[in-house]
């Protein structure tokens, strides 16, 4: 086993492990076969599993996800790729109205064990229509599980859990993390969905982050440590199930909370986390709760502009400092 693997490789590895284990796992999406995906996250799958397991599709997001749904209802475990998470908008009916509701509205008659994988997030200069962090769109819809791993090992472990899940899972792979490296996952590695991880301990403030914001929060925590501020970093890993127990437990230790999210402030996931805290954790709070979130604008193209919009280490540090002053 290699010493380190990239997040990108982990996606393909995570898929391959499950495809080896379970013949009912099939992949479909645009350019995922011979090309190995535009992000190379399905590299090698066609070669290993052949064209009956890895299907290239037309540019038809509705047909991709709709067909995955039909297959999931009839005995398969499809994994559909939507190339950029912005394009979830092109098949939103399936994510919002069909997949998460069919079990409920049939009184439990059907299950939909599928995964929709998608490249999420900004920071790469891809502009307004290829850079959004859209996990909050999925959060508006009851009935979807939402996974957004931050490390290669989590990619593999959460992919295993997602594919084995009998519930539909939207799996956000962060574009900004694809080249990042981390420890490989041991064989049979499964990370249960809905378990947050305390990835750094600290006594003064809790930073709750997700996906690419986890390394941002960790870097901020390291800087804050130099100033004598102990920041505990919680990697949520999933938005649904949302592990508020871990967040509230951390808050019990630190009494201060800052959420760090790539979503725009308006309608971002941090709002839901904060609203639970403002209710159930109110008595624990020693200071206002602050959200470091995306600005409420589309993503601009130029790096210099994009940095103004997406949370940065500096912004997190500033937010924590402002609380410490409280």
């Amino acid at each position, binding site marked *: 086993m290699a010493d380190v693997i990239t997040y990108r490789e982990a996606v393909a590895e995570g898929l391959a492990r499950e495809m080896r284990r379970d013949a009912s796992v099939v992949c479909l999406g645009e350019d995922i076969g011979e090309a190995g995906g535009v992000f190379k996250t399905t590299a090698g799958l066609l070669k290993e599993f052949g064209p009956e397991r890895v299907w290239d599709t037309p540019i038809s997001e509705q047909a991709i996800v709709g067909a995955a749904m*039909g297959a999931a209802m009839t005995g398969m475990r499809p994994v559909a790729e939507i190339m950029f998470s912005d394009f979830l908008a092109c098949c939103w009916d399936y994510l919002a109205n069909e997949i998460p509701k069919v079990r409920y509205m049939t009184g439990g008659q059907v299950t939909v064990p599928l995964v929709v994988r998608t490249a999420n997030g900004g920071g790469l200069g891809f502009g307004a229509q290829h850079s959004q962090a859209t996990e909050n769109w999925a959060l508006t819809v009851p009935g979807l599980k939402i996974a957004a791993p931050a490390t290669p090992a989590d990619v593999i472990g959460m992919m295993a859990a997602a594919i084995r899940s009998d519930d539909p899972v939207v799996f956000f792979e962060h574009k900004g993390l694809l080249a990042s490296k981390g420890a490989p996952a041991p064989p049979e590695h499964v990370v249960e969905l809905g378990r947050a991880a305390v990835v750094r301990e600290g006594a003064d403030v809790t930073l709750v982050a997700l996906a690419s914001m986890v390394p941002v929060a960790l870097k901020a925590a390291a800087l804050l440590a130099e100033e004598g501020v102990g920041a505990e970093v919680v990697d949520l890993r999933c938005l649904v199930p949302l592990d508020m127990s871990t967040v509230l437990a951390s808050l019990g230790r630190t009494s201060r909370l800052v959420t760090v999210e790539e979503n725009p402030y308006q309608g971002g996931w941090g709002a839901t986390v904060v609203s639970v805290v403002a209710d159930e954790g109110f008595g624990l709070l020693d200071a206002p709760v602050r959200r470091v979130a995306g600005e409420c604008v589309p993503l601009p193209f130029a790096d210099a502009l994009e940095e103004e919009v997406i949370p940065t280490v500096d912004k997190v540090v500033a937010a924590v400092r402002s609380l410490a002053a409280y």
Partner: protein
Amino acid sequence: MDSGELLARYEQMAVIRRTEKAAHDLFLQGLVKGTTHLAAGHEAIAVGASAALRDDDYVFATYRGHHHALARGATPEECLAELMSRATGLCGAKGGSMHLTKASTGMLGSYAIVGAHLPMAVGAAWSARLRGSGQIAVAFFGDGATNIGAFHEALNLAAVWKLPVLFVCENNLYMEYTPIADVTAVDRPAADRAPAYGIPGEVVDGNDVVAVQEAVAALARRARAGDGPAVLEAATYRHFGHSRTDPATYRPAEEVERWLKHDPLDLARGRLTELGVPEETVTAADERARDVVERAVEAAKGAPPPDPREALTDVWADGSAAWRT
């Protein structure tokens, strides 16, 4: 089709017709909430198609789907209980008229977003092929659905992957209140588009149960043989308005009259007479249908409402609805 078979079809259509009439009356009595989209007039499509399918084939329908649920094995009691918000309803009163589903017999649901189920049927056919099960999938949809994007994507994907799926359009000449001809660029909204996907596009009299069964049987054979998908456009007409209490005054009287004269039950009855089936035999089938539906109405009326706690179940496969810890 021999007379015994045709009589069976006739009786099934009669059950559907009476169930729809019962649903209509119950709606007017305030016993059915929300909305209903009745399929009276469309019976031959559901019954003819179902008869041409294997028991394990898949069917996907729309909000106007009572006839498909019934044709695929749901009982009038289950359906009416669902409409009347009873615990014994097909979907435990969680779905309602627009979402009748009987998964145990391959009737995989009624969907209320126009066209959304077409890609699902493609997926079910893909699954059948991957599993080598020999099953096919059938999507029933309205003329209006042919103008939505999902129609296009579904047909292209099915054609490219040569999947065993049939697209059966119930062309009843109207969307809700607008004539389909006013908003569609071709005369035959479904059949005229089949060439855009390189697949056969046939037209059939959707009120003639024998013609429908034969057409579906032929296309199903073809699909099962690996020759890919097909479009079947079945011409029909609805007896009621679009939904609820719509009086359908937007339809010309002459048109309504013409179509009511071309009723699927009358047509089947005529054929039965031609085949020498005595009138009493047909009347007996009618009476059985009446009894079944009458008993269903009574049973549904007598059934309990759902337990309110059911509202917070069935989101997840484990039966729960918990989204957080």
